[in-house]
């Protein structure tokens, strides 16, 4: 980044009457200043994300194989038509929806409960707060390995526990059962996400003003009422941020699902990313894979814009 001389400097003239100035030129600097701060990161993302993404957009309108990615035959919207006409793709969309929703609801809900639990006083609190975060630090590949082994249909400790308590997943076990595989993958994912959510919410809980809690209690509010009126109001923005992060990460999650089930059995755990990967690297059709990716991107955009609108509406309400 070449530093252009002066732009930041000229703004430092001390204003004689700071208040009106402040209104106009928030953080000072010349009009170029924000762009100087932005430039390195934006340039970086243009090279490593935007340019490859634009190429993917182009690929989605071509027939291109993994083996010769530079040889593209323009096919117009044919890839999109093929993807949309495939009944399996509708299942993929539904599976993605279920997976992402359950991940977000499950991890935020359980994460909140764990955070509330750890926020109280009890012996060994510091140790407990540390240990509970272990799942989040465990690498996805290691988690997939141990989860697969624990769900092993003959010898897995989870399968055997399930059988012992009267829930027989059938001779195939859980991961090869089309009705249970998604639940097992979800349980593993949520196990990994809850600690992250609870740590973030735990720190947000420290911001709940005790005076307000006590005041609410003096006014005779019950536990639930106090939670809703005081605690929830403080946590709301943090929960919003966490929910967005969980949505994003769940839409993108690959290794865990791929190593546990490869999207099977019968496509019951095939999310958009798994479908994309299978199209690109198993069927070697980069064009089709790019079209799947574009559908995913459109869905992501809808989610982001939807989240913004909801947040804005909530802000207005408050």
């Amino acid at each position, binding site marked *: 980044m070449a530093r252009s001389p002066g732009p930041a400097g000229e703004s430092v003239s001390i204003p004689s009457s700071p208040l009106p100035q402040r209104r*106009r*030129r*928030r953080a000072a600097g010349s*009009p170029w200043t924000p*762009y100087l701060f932005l430039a390195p990161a*934006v*340039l970086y993302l*243009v*090279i490593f994300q*935007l*340019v*490859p993404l*634009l*190429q993917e957009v182009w690929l989605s309108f071509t027939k291109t*194989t*993994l*083996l*010769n*990615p*530079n040889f593209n035959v323009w096919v117009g919207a044919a890839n999109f038509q093929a993807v949309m006409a495939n009944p399996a793709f509708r299942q993929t969309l539904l599976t993605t929806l279920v997976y992402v929703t359950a991940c977000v609801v499950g991890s935020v809900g359980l994460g909140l409960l764990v955070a509330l639990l750890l926020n109280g006083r009890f012996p060994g609190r510091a140790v407990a707060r540390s240990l509970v975060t272990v799942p989040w630090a465990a690498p996805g590949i290691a988690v997939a390995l141990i989860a*697969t082994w624990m769900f*092993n*249909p*003959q*010898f897995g400790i989870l399968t055997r526990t399930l059988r012992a308590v009267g829930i027989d997943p059938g*001779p*195939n*076990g859980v*991961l*090869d*059962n*089309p009705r249970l595989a998604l639940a097992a993958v979800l349980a593993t994912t949520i196990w990994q996400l809850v600690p992250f959510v609870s740590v973030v919410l735990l720190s947000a809980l420290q911001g709940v003003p005790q005076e307000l809690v006590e005041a609410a209690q003096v006014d005779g509010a019950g536990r639930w009422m106090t939670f809703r009126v005081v605690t929830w109001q403080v946590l709301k923005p943090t929960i919003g941020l966490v929910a967005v992060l969980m949505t994003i990460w769940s839409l993108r999650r690959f290794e865990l699902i791929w*190593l*546990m*089930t*490869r*999207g*099977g*059995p*019968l*496509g019951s755990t095939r999310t958009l990313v798994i479908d994309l990967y299978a199209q690109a*690297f*198993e*069927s*070697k059709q980069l064009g089709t894979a790019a079209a799947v990716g574009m559908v995913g991107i459109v869905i992501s955009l809808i989610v982001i814009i939807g989240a913004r609108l909801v947040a804005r509406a909530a802000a207005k309400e408050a």
Partner: protein
Amino acid sequence: MSLRPPRRGRSISVLAAIAVGVTVLAACSSGPSASSGNSSAGPQPATITFAASTLGDPGRGPGLQKLIDEYNASQKVVTVQPAAVPYPTFGQTVLTQMGGGEGPDLVRFDMPEFATASSSGLLEPLDDKIDAAKLKLIPGPDKYLSVDGHRYGVVFENANYAMFYNKDLVPNPPKTFDEFVQTAKNTTKGDVYGLAFRQTQAEEAGVWQDIFNYVLGFGGDWSDGKKLTLDSPKVIEGLKAYQQLYDANVIPKGADAATFRKMFANGKVGMELNNGGYVTATSSANANLNFSVSRIPFPEKKQGTLLAPMVVNANSKHKDAALDFMNWLLQPAQQVKLQGVLGASSVASPTERSAESLKKFPFLPALDELTDSGVPQIVNGFGPQTADIRHIVVTEVLAALQGQQDMATAMAKAQKQAEKLVGQ
């Protein structure tokens, strides 16, 4: 909100210009810059990489590494290094790298990937580099490595499929399919299963290898060389036999190969249809296992073979060096050692089994005899599309196993999808 429109226009256009510039840079592909070199003068000093899933096997990997070390020590010009490609994503990774103009110099492929790569121009033609007559390459398997009249590889390993059985659990190996089913049923007790095979989506390539034996063993074939015959009665009959065993609850269902092979090595599985390469793995997992190998007891004396070619990447900058290693490995002395590493597989040229290995594994000659009746696991006439056909077939067959449809419906659907795929 503080900027006036003209400025904004400029800054956006600067960004756009950068974006376009980078796009152009990235989009213009540079072809492989390898020069063919002067082949007469011997290889230039180089370090080359060799990708083989064999290197990741705890049983066979160390042996192959030792052989590579021996080559590296035998001369000072070329150093062969194992490439870092884990088995779970082997094909995808290597093909992505090769399609992108890079990749390991030498690769040990499975047939479906070989067929795809050779038809896409990713492999170096070896026509005048390999003297098949002088090296005495076994013609049967070797002929599969030429595509459109050009040789693209040599046999690294050719592992015939046979029936592995635990002699303590199965004292009398079955001779017919009915006996096979009965033995599997009789052997299944408690933690012990009569049979094991792959039957999950997570192991698509493995399921394909396993059902190949049932289809061939019941007289079927995926194609007649010109037309796909996925829904022919013989194919369906073979797959129904596979399903019959699945439904008989004689296998550890849902278990992956890593698990049930360990179970076999620990005496928890009576029989398994597997390739000869598995002999080394089994004896390294449990040296005391009392097991033997015999022909698969299906009506038709035909079975799949795991044919694994070794190829030179067309992008390689050191083709001479790669060929030097390849030719070294094809010499009789090295072939014997390679066969020792690979277990009961055959290699590119005929080798004599050592007295020592015959004493350890008296069934080896029986395995070697199967080479004539072995069929590589590709769809005859549709080599490059094998991986895609495999995906279709395995998906439909597994849906039948899960009770979603009967086998005839499954294969009718598979036939339709595959015909669309190959444009018939």
